[in-house]
């Protein structure tokens, strides 16, 4: 009895402490709505974390404002893969590039049910259909650009290219491919898949758009003695027409986008920068400052010029998407998957 008395305070303390504990079971995320609506919307590719296999594609319905955090898993019963880099809508199909899974998944844009998988890549980044039932896929580590047969959904050839290739663009029967490590833009004849020209820009060439005047613009993050810069290319001469350098710093230009009219360039450099295609100097300050956010994705709605901005926060939680009007007025926010990286409008 004496011993029981001695142990009693001990037990009481234990019970009190246990009562203070917190439940560790997480709340189940809300089930997806099952595909997209019929109207206009924007797909947000979320990279997820390297080697975590938590890449997702979220969807924002422009008319209703409804958000689906993950389209793929509910439709296919399995996660999509590791590091979703980009997505392209073509011929009634969506091609989703899953970088560290080395694949491009082909899904229905509305149901997101997978119909095919194109495999055999090392580190695919961007997908571009180039006509004749073909597409090019830049492959970061492969030292080549893959040629994909869209009828068989298989790789039919390789175009050698040393260095790491990123975004690409089709203009006048030629594919223009940014090469980050070499600081070049490769020009490939899509009829013959042959490299026909190379344009030297600045190191870190990462993204490319075409403006209303038919010129090409390339964002370069600089490095190796070359400055961060926006570079304008004349595709008729395949030559650099103008270079808009920036001072080298922690934040350098990337994620270059253009509005539907093709007259205003937008890019990330910490905050969002804007530049009219006719401007003679590069913008000195941000159009939308970062304000403590980790801005990682940028997209411009080609119809109404709405600016979609992705905040990856700390990379290990849900990303936040901001919508801004063309004038820079904030319209609202919504949450998506981990590390939103690109937007795809439909």
């Amino acid at each position, binding site marked *: 009895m004496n011993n029981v008395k001695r142990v009693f305070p001990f037990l009481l303390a234990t019970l009190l402490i246990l009562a203070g504990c917190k439940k560790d079971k997480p709340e189940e995320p809300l089930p997806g709505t099952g595909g997209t609506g019929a109207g206009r919307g924007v797909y947000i590719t979320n990279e997820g974390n390297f080697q975590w296999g938590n890449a997702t594609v979220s969807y924002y319905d422009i008319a209703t404002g409804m958000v689906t955090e993950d389209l793929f898993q509910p439709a296919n*019963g399995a996660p999509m*893969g590791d590091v979703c880099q980009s997505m392209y809508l073509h011929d009634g199909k969506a091609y989703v590039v899953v970088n*560290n899974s080395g694949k491009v998944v082909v899904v229905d844009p509305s149901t997101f049910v997978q119909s095919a998988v194109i495999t055999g890549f090392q580190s695919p980044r961007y997908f571009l259909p180039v006509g004749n039932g073909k597409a090019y896929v830049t492959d970061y580590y492969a030292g080549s650009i893959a040629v994909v047969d869209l009828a068989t959904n298989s790789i039919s050839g390789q175009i050698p290219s040393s260095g790491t290739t990123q975004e690409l663009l089709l203009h006048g029967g030629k594919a223009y491919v940014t090469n980050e490590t070499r600081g070049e833009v490769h020009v490939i004849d899509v009829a013959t898949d042959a490299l026909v020209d190379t344009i030297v820009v600045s190191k870190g060439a990462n993204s490319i758009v075409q403006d209303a005047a038919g010129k090409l613009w390339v964002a370069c993050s600089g490095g190796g003695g070359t400055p961060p810069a926006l570079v304008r290319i004349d595709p008729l001469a395949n030559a650099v027409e103008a270079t808009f350098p920036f001072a080298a710093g*922690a934040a350098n230009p990337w994620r270059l986008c253009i509005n539907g009219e093709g007259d205003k360039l937008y890019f990330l450099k910490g905050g969002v920068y804007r530049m009219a295609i006719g401007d003679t100097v590069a913008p000195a300050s941000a159009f939308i400052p970062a304000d403590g956010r980790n801005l990682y994705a940028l997209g411009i709605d080609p119809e109404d010029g709405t600016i979609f901005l992705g905040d990856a926060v700390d990379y290990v939680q849900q990303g936040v998407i901001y919508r801004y009007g063309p004038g820079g007025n904030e319209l609202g926010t919504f949450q998506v998957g981990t590390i939103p990286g690109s937007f795809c409008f439909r």
Partner: protein
Amino acid sequence: MMHVRVRLLVGLLLYPGLALQAQDMLDSLQLDAVTISASRGVLFDAGVKVQAIDSATLARYRDRDLGELLRDASPVFVKSYGMGSLATTSFRGGGASHTAVLWNGFNLGSPQNGQLDLSLVPGGLADEVTVQYGGSAALWGSGAVGGAVLLRSGTSFGGGLSAEAGASFGSFGDLRQQAGAGYSNDRLAFTVRGYRAEAENDFPYQVRLNGSDAERRQQNAGLLVQGLVAGTAWRINPRQQLKVDAWFADAERQVPPTPVQGAGSDHQHDRALRATSEWRRTGNKATSFVRGAWFDEELWWYGQGADSAAYSRARTAIAEGEMRMRAGERHLFGAGLHGTYTAAGSDGYREGRSQDRGALFASYRFRSIGRRFLATAAVRQEWADGVPVPFTWSLGGEYRFLRLFTAKANASRLYRLPTLNDLYWIPGGNPELLAEQGYAGELGLLARHAGRKGTTLEAGITGYRRVMDNWIIWLPAGNYWSPQNLMEVWSRGIEFHGEAGWRMGRTRATVGVMTSYARSTNERPKTANDASVGKQLIYVPMYSGGARAGMEWRSWCAELDAHYTGYRYISTDNRQFLDPYTLVGASLSWRIRAGRGCMLSVLLQGANLLDASYQVMLNRPMPPRHFRAGIRMQFNQPRRAGPAEPAAHAQTADE
């Protein structure tokens, strides 16, 4: 005196369940003559929870690694990336670089990333493993925030000739061998041990594909780990002793791809030479120590798309002088100075980098005459490249009452220096980083009872609280990542452990249980939209626990254990998580005397007996049910009359 101790130690080896009972006796024996040369962390850190891993458990993990040992025998969460792959810790809600692993008193954490891969530390490296809970930066310096693991290689005198050899084979191509020999007389002692482990680790695992589970086989997961551990001790005269230990390790490991990747061919090669030394002079009132260490660690990483290996190397020289002085029966003072010089190179630095650290430390211990009350205080001031880091202290006390109980309390200030990678990595390294710093406190109550007929009971409960500020985290800064002093982390938790043992004739039974509740939350937003505030850190299980039961009968010994690990969040907003898992293991061993001074033992072990499909870390599959069998031969020829049991040589001499 020494013989009494040796007998006790032998007793511990043969009857591991006795450990508890014997501990009290050891305590009282040690306290007089021995204490003064004990480990600093044990001596001058009253009030913290301390767990000595018993020698029977150590013997079972001799050919395993430290990660497996801590996973099974302590509440430390071991973040294992797979069988034989990288294993780091989370201790009381801290990160991998918040646990200090010390070998003979020297921190093994890499100066480059602050971590130690526990899978590369063989279980046979140390003859004593002590887990010191809570922060002890005032004793051990930078990094001893969540806890410290003290490893000690021992070399004892007067043991004669000994030798051992063992081999085991297990599932998935696991083959291990080790052999060692030692000789000691009253003045000189030598031991040398070699170990080798190879494995395919090509185990099957379940993966969810297109709505149904499919079975896959782990690939590119092979390993070959080899090493040599040698120690020597020289009793120069009755007052002076010199001890030198060296450890060479070489590991070739493939790094398996995650299930979400395609095939993988990454592999890494680790090589390290580490040596420690201690000279000790015991005077009537004062004992002096001079210690030195040399660590040379190299890593080659062969990754995807890389033409050649990414290479890094760190060389560290450490020197330390310490003096301890007794004043009467109650007071013990200690003071010392410490210097660490590290030179490191990496493909990530462009140029060689170095760090020069110096520290002054002092400590005090008070024990009341009746030994009811014990109190310690310690202070430490460290400089890193001439810049003072936060002044650190600890205060602790223990009080015994009602015969059964000991109440414990400890408070301390803690810090962790940024690593060389944090400071100098290109791009991103931030030379402006401050040391992480914070405060920790804990309260504990321990009940211990030793009955007359070999019945032992022990139960302890500990609550702790810790706030660390300037917590370093790598975050994007423009086009690359950079570490910043951004987080404030509040950790608190409760740990419970209980053990009981009985003896009935030649049968001895023990049961034990340990549980841990650990909350560790970020308290400060890192960026504008940070939803991690108030949320549990990733990879810190809130609940974990284990239970074990053991039985010994004549020369047979059986053990059964089970461990539960609760949800681990993997996103900082706690929306993504990994499921809990329970692992059950069992072992059966049999020991027989095979001739004079010779002992043969056979071990059968099964792990994950419930065949749980689980992941400790996301997308790092763990093996299903698997088994191994081992055999070990030990030989001891004493120099003269003395205990004939062979295992005694392995114990540390604190005589």
